């Protein structure tokens, strides 16, 4: 091969390698994105079944049940609830009535199987995702309350 075509071959190989690397990165990126859903979204069937995602909200008081290292609890965004089961040791900051984020997948019965429970938090004991879920839940509640008031108002007239 002439030096010039040799150089060209190297450059082509380099560009091909780079393209491969970019494709690899983007593919790995796409298949490892973990989406976040609130219990309300899960109730309205927006969450995928089988694929891993995160759910966040508040642990319902009195819902925590332990059998050795098997635990189950219920997460709510004050509108809807999702039962969650997990095997392992819960983080230090996990508490009933406080925020939680769980990563795992949903089965057909609407039961969430967590592979990881996170209680990373700010000073108010609230993981950002959980705070988001509760805020959305709160807004939904407010909307419902408003429509109820309207209906009542209509009846009284």
């Amino acid at each position, binding site marked *: 091969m002439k030096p010039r075509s040799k150089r060209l071959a190297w450059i082509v190989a380099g560009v091909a390698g780079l393209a491969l690397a970019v494709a690899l990165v983007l593919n*790995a*990126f796409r298949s490892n994105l973990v989406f976040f859903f609130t219990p309300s979204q899960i109730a309205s069937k927006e969450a995928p079944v089988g694929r891993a995602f995160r759910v966040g909200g508040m642990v319902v008081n009195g819902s925590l049940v332990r059998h050795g*290292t098997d635990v189950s609890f219920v997460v709510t965004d004050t509108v809807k609830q999702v039962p969650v089961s997990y095997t392992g040791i819960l983080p*230090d900051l996990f508490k009933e009535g406080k925020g939680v984020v769980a*990563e795992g997948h949903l089965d057909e019965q609407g039961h969430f199987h967590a592979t990881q429970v996170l209680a990373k938090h*700010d000073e108010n004991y609230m993981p950002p995702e959980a705070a988001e879920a509760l805020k959305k839940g709160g807004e939904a509640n407010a909307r419902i309350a408003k429509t109820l008031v309207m209906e009542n108002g209509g009846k009284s007239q």
Partner: protein
Amino acid sequence: MIPEIGNLALVLCLILSMVQIVVPIAGAQTGNRAWMAMARPAARAQFALVVLAFACLVISMLGSDFSVKYVAETSSRLLPVQYKIAAVWGGHEGSILLWLLMLTFWMTAVSVFSRHLPEAMLARILGVMGFISFGFLLFILLTSNPFERLIPAALDGQDLNPLLQDPGMVAHPPMLYMGYVGFSVAFAFAIAALLGGDLDAAWARWSRPWTTVAWTFLTVGICLGSAWAYYTLGWGGWWFWDPVENASFMPWLMGTALMHSLAVTEKRGGFKVWTVLLAIFAFSLSLLGTFLVRSGVLTSVHAFASDPRRGVFILIFLVVVIGGSLGLFAWRAPKVGLGGRFGMVSRESMLLGNNVLFAAAAGSVLLGTLYPLFLDALGLGKISVGPPYFDTVFVPLMAPALFLMGVGPISRWKEASLPDLRIRLQWAAAISVVMAVVLTFIKGSFSFAVAFGLLLACWIVTSAAVNLWGRIRPVPGVSTSLFSRLGGQSRSYYGMLAAHLGVAVFVVGVTMVKGYEIEKDVQMDIGDTVAIGPYTFRFNGVSEGAGPNYQYQRGNVDVLRDGALVRNMGPEKRTYLVQRNPMTNAAIDSGFLRDLYVSLGEPVGPTSWTVRVYFKPFVDWIWFGCLMMAFGGVLAISDKRYRIEKRKARAAAAASAAMPAGVAGAGVAE
């Protein structure tokens, strides 16, 4: 009174920093020597003022002066003294002050070890650093003043976050910041060179040791952070690909690329433009890291938006620094020229490969860290990018880099011959393959991932041995002893070997932990046992007690091997008195070949607990490898040529007393 002195010192420093930006750079552009000479005293005075301010904060902290808001937020009466010191940088305001302290320290260091620099160059460097210092001073005074008073004063502080009450955490931030901020020197050198328009090999020679020092500190800092996570977070992980960790890892990747690129610029005059760009990126990523960790954007973009002053300030500062330097780069770089030509197979091309791979790695970490933040900020939903992404991306990107690590140092500059390389490395390759396969079979089960990791580690070690042997093998006709030939190699050469071997040790650690760790979460009552690998753990119950500022429940666990007691371990569950948060304190038995790790979960019955029991083979090799890399950095900067340069500089300084300074400076620069 003392906090007010600290505040005053910062205000004076701000004024001084403005002087340091304007006067020396104006002097350098117009050739006014008296103006340029302002740079040195200004830099040192800034350092003195920041030290004063820092000392004021330390005094307030030690005296538990809860009329200072920052002290009330991060300390408490019962906090042990060493953690009161750590509390100085345990919160936002104090850590930014630490950042500034490091920056002014680096400025002073540059002003001291710069006798060999041309006066105009030094003036520009300190001017650029003065600008960064100005930005951070303004940031502190406008948005994050650690001396702000709290009226009325608190009776007791809110205590330091229990997670930070750990010896590793005392040293981790200073080390990390020394590294972060250290890249500002390389950055300032690059900008000064662009401003002055003289980017030659001398520039790279001056810039190189500073970059190596910064990189060394950053390596140690990241290593301490990782070890801290392992010891304190209570679940045995050593790296989580958490955005906070990524924030420190991105500058490290870029800095590693920069170090290697600087070698080419110094030795061969090549890669000039690329090196300047890497210097800009390395420091930009340091700033970005500070922004990510310190603006609150990670906890929640919404929290960030509700108190946007801090975040917006850093964002503007980022745009000015990065945009400005890239603009300057675009304007000036075409004049720099590309430097020497090199063949497709040569040390240059391999170092270029290293550079590209490291830059790509930094880019992929950046993507994984920033993309979720962007989506969230734009209201497009919340996502997270998990460790699997980083794992999948990193192995294919780093594997070729590790392969090149074996070939590169053996190749000739400019043009290497492939057949020659093949002959020199064939035994190294063969031995590596055999070792990798044999070692994996000895461990019992064959796993491709483990074999591949060990193969790369063996390759680094054997090719380093080939490299060293090539340099010290007896030459016919010349009679020197092996020791004198060993002594004849430069320290920077040994530094390179040590750092590369450190990578091998690190790779072994990661491979073995990933491949053979055993983790069990079990419920245990008094007398229960659980077997892990060759060890049996027996749970003897839990006792209660109190530490200086916490209460604890301590488990009693015996570790047995073949029926004989190996170690008694006491994992704790602590409740700190002020913040009332429970914290797990794992018990770890460290060993050369394995760690045993026990931590308490929750009580499930009257005497039974859930317990975490881990067996972590070779985990300490991870941190030992990092320390070896850092040691390599130390060796490289203790190299003779830097000492000779200093001696030369001293001679030049003596000569310049008789001669105009500019001429003498130019003389040394040649």
